[in-house]
């Protein structure tokens, strides 16, 4: 087990092309940290820098408090699980799992012992003599994880390891990875663009965009208190509803939408001025049905029945953005074209300034 510290890490491929623009944070010993962000945001590059597969252009990387910038990948005490599994096709499962130990010159008995132990943990003992092509996707992924376990690494690195699996298998593997982390207690860094994986697996999430860390925190902290519009939009499915409006008064958390509707948010808007363009954010589960007297009128434009819940897409008069609301399943009296009234509770509303930076919430 080990901590991983990034000290102003940067990566440039050419003079003008900066992929990582100064990253500064520490992953604690035994933590499960998930890097999320859109394609090209630099999360995989950073992971490969930890693995030793990419050179570090600037800054310092410490693994277990040892400067690792120039350490060979095999000397860093890391093991990596790749998206495509990266199993050696000409070797059996046993040879795949024992390859790193063989390269390190470990005796055959030790290799066999460690491989069997890892195979036991992952319940793949019966597959040891098979070649990768004779395995299913899920089995291959287990072998890839087994290969990492055998190395007994200080840090596990996962590069979108579940992306190639179907939905149900992905869910199973997610649970297994959580259990594995609980059992091994090893530091794990996990890269994904799937925010569900990030929310369910992580002790802490690091959200990347454009080579910069946007926010670091516990999953629910990020979900409830995103620091900016990007983080708010990236976490949560369906996506957070965002409505453009203008502040009504100086330092007031009241805004008026394009359609003239007035809304409030429980935020500290002291730095806001009357007339400032702002964006109000509210999660679909926080948009509630209301009586005509205390709600905003809206028209239903689509109803999606998902079984346990219903997604209702609505349009508010004069407002360009459509809203999504998440209601309990079997709320069957809602139909396309109906007019309903909705309440956007101020305690659940987020407010972002023109630059997309969130105003601090006063209710947590």
């Amino acid at each position, binding site marked *: 087990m080990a901590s991983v510290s990034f000290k102003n890490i940067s990566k440039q491929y050419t003079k003008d092309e900066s992929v990582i623009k100064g990253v500064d944070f520490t992953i604690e010993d035994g933590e499960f940290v998930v890097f999320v962000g859109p394609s090209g945001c630099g999360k995989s590059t950073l992971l*490969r820098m930890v*693995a*030793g*597969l990419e050179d570090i252009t600037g800054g310092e990387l410490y693994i277990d408090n040892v400067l690792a910038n120039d350490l060979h*990948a*095999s000397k860093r005490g*890391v*093991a*990596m699980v*790749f*998206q*495509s599994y*990266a199993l*050696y*096709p*000409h070797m059996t499962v046993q040879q795949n799992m024992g*390859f*790193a130990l063989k*390269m*390190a010159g470990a005796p055959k008995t030790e290799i066999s012992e460690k491989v069997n132990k890892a195979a036991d943990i992952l319940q793949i003992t019966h597959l040891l003599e098979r070649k990768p092509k004779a395995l299913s996707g899920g089995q291959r992924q287990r072998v890839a994880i087994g*290969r990492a376990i055998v*190395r007994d690494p200080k840090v596990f690195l996962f590069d979108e390891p579940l992306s190639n699996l179907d939905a149900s298998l992905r869910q199973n593997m997610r649970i297994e990875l959580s259990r594995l982390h609980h059992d091994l207690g090893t530091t794990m860094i996990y890269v994904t663009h799937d925010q569900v994986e990030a929310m369910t697996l992580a002790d802490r999430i690091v959200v990347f965009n454009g080579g910069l860390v946007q926010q670091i925190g516990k999953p629910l902290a990020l979900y409830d208190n995103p620091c900016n519009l990007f983080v708010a939009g990236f976490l949560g499915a369906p996506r957070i509803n965002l409505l453009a409006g203008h502040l009504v008064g100086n330092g007031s958390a009241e805004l008026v939408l394009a359609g003239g509707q007035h809304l409030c948010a429980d935020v500290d808007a002291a730095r806001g001025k009357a007339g400032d363009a702002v964006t109000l954010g509210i999660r679909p589960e926080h948009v509630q049905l209301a009586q005509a007297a205390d709600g905003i009128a809206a028209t239903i434009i689509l109803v999606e029945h998902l079984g346990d819940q219903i997604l209702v897409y609505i349009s508010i008069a004069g407002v360009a953005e459509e809203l999504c609301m998440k209601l309990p399943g079997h709320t069957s009296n809602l139909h396309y074209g109906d007019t309903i009234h909705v309440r956007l509770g101020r305690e659940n509303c987020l407010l972002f300034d023109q630059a997309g930076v969130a105003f601090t919430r006063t209710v947590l």
Partner: protein
Amino acid sequence: MTTKRSNTWLLNALTWSIVLVTLLPIFWMVLSSLRNYSDIADGGQLDAGLTFQWQNYVDMWINVDFFNFFKNSLIICTLTTLFATVSATCAAYALARFRFHGSNAVSVGITITQVIPGMLFFLPLYMLYRKIGESYGVPMLDTYHGLIFLYVALFTPASIWIMRGFFIAIPRELEDAAIIDGCSRFGAFVRIVLPISAPGIIATATFIFLLAWDELFFAWTLTSSSSVQTIPVGIRLFIGQYQHRYDLMMAAATVSTLPVLIAFFACQRFFIKGLAAGAVKG
């Protein structure tokens, strides 16, 4: 349904026609090798029916020192295959994996060598070989190494293109995994990439061997003594000043085809797999 069936029938007929047209010269060669001199002189290969005579396969070794040509071909083609495969493998891997200054120029250069007819190289090559012999005391004309050197240069570019496609098809992550597992870049190439690309390498090696085995023009023009000349040159000797021994020539041609056929059938599955991969991904 009827249209589909007739289409299938037509396609089958077309396929078999092509197969027959392709195999006919080989059939004629084998048949002629089993006829005597007078049968062939009269154009009566088919008249003799099922009466075969095998004496040509004995006489061909006596009439001309065919074993010598066979030995030369084997040495030259084996060494050519070895050197060309090694150099093509390394070059193809570099072109498939690394971006370096001039990598595009190298790729274009390799392509250009394939569109220039090889015969155009003959005169400058002949002069160069002669110059090397005269100026540096290293004989290149009429030597094994002169021919091998040329063949390696001639057959490497096409081999690079075949193998490049094969290397591109191998996921980079395999090498990354090997590096994390403790291999150097070269170690990952040797331990992971080479074993995986074995079908492609074997296919390429077979391809080079076939090309070298059949090559006549340079083997004929750059050699003059029978101690170096290869089978395609040797076979010509059955046509003499007073007699054209097509019967012996056909027997020699049949025998010279055997190693190539054996090599091809032994490596057939690699050959098809390797060339197909190269074609799709190249």
